[in-house]
């Protein structure tokens, strides 16, 4: 597989490590209810098809990259620095 790194360009997947679903959100720091934390850590949509997921370019620029990929065909649609996305969401919130 080739993973498109926004900084380094297309790279062999062997340079990356995989974490998983990039759409889950850590609850706010002051959230005291257990349930949202449980969902954040344990529950996944696990879609068959479009999936946004985190890859870490560890043998490369060390960026966390949010990659959009099809879990059935493995086709990759695009990627973004996870940080940029996090900042964008922060600003929207």
């Amino acid at each position, binding site marked *: *597989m080739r993973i498109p790194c926004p900084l380094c360009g297309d790279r*062999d*997947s*062997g340079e990356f*490590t*995989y*974490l*998983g*679903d990039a759409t889950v959100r850590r609850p706010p720091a002051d959230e005291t209810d*257990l349930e949202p934390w*449980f*969902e954040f*850590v*344990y*529950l*996944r*949509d*696990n879609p*068959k098809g479009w*999936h946004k*997921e985190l890859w870490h370019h560890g043998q490369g620029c060390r960026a966390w990259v949010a990659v959009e*990929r099809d*879990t*059935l*065909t*493995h086709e990759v649609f695009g990627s973004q620095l996870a940080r940029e996305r996090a900042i964008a969401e922060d600003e929207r919130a």
Partner: protein
Amino acid sequence: MRYSIGRLLHQALRGHRDWPEAWRSPEPKAEYDVIIVGGGGHGLATAFYLAKVHGITNVAVLEKGYLGGGNVGRNTTIVRANYMLPGNERFYAHSLKLWESLSQELNFNVMFSQRGVLNLAHSDAQVDAFARRGNSMRLHGEDAELLDPEEIRRMVPCLDLDNARFPVYGGLLQRRAGNARHDAVAWGFARGADRLGVDIIENCEVTSIHREGGRVTGVDTTRGAIKAAKIGLAVAGHTSKLAEMAGLRLPIESHLLQAFVSEAVKPVIDQVVTFAAGHFYISQSDKGGLVFGASLDGYNSYAARGNLPAVEHTIEAAMSLMPVVGRLRLLRHWGGIMDMSMDGSPIIDKTPVEGLYLNGGWCYGGFKATPGSGWSFAYTIARDEVHETNSGLRLDRFRSGHLLDEEASGPVPNLH
């Protein structure tokens, strides 16, 4: 017709003309008492034990493709009960006992071969961890032995212990463990269930689950709607998809695991051997092929088809301790879709939806569970309660913290 050597010889003289179908191919009925979704090992075994132990025979097993075409038909066939955590060990110990008489129970030779499973340890700390596990097994009444490197050298001469990057400090052996002929397990359970009246319906994909007032009433399939008050899910890699049809999100991700077979050669290795240093396991099939595997490709996937890096990692591990295989050739490699749970251990339980039962999260260890899983799941479906054997395999353990994390790698499925 019962299978026996006498029948076989008799049929040999008659050109094998009279063997009946191993299982029927009935049209689905409008309603069953129980629907099992998934015609893999677990689904078929569940149907068999529902009929055999609980007398519930109005059962349909719905399989979207061909029977046994899922993970039961593509796994490395290791059968063992060498777990450390009681919630797992008592379940797998029960399963191993069922394996020991399975061929006779099914009247179908599943070729269960108790050739022993040997885990190699690559540091003193790993030896200690194996001892802890072996002691758990022994406290459960299972067999476990701690071997030293010299015993291992004698037992498995094809290992090159003297040039290893990670030397072998010892090993944990379970002699009663081994492997079995994967397809025969699916076929044997199918034939057994069919003979007890279960309808096995192939090419029948479940596309939605009907619910009324918080309880299930039936399913839609590619071969029409079918009603049932009880539905058991045993769909391995597709567990999340089916759960979603019933409005559930699960602590499960689907991942890809590859397996490998070499050309057939005369006996090279007599046991099942696993190396902890590379997550690697190998045995030789009765046909002569070396069957081996290692860790997941590492990314969520529903494609039963993997990539080259995982192939190479696996074979590096093989060549780390068995350089004798260097000139043997890889014949084929394939993949399966694993239902990886967040703690690496399975779930057999009721669900918040009444009448819906869940069997999943098998990760790469569900083949050995086949009879035990079918047995416990049948019990839970028939009685609407968990049995002691699956009392640790509850769905709410992630919320409560009663985790069964054998690998201790935390809620990251691709690390288990």
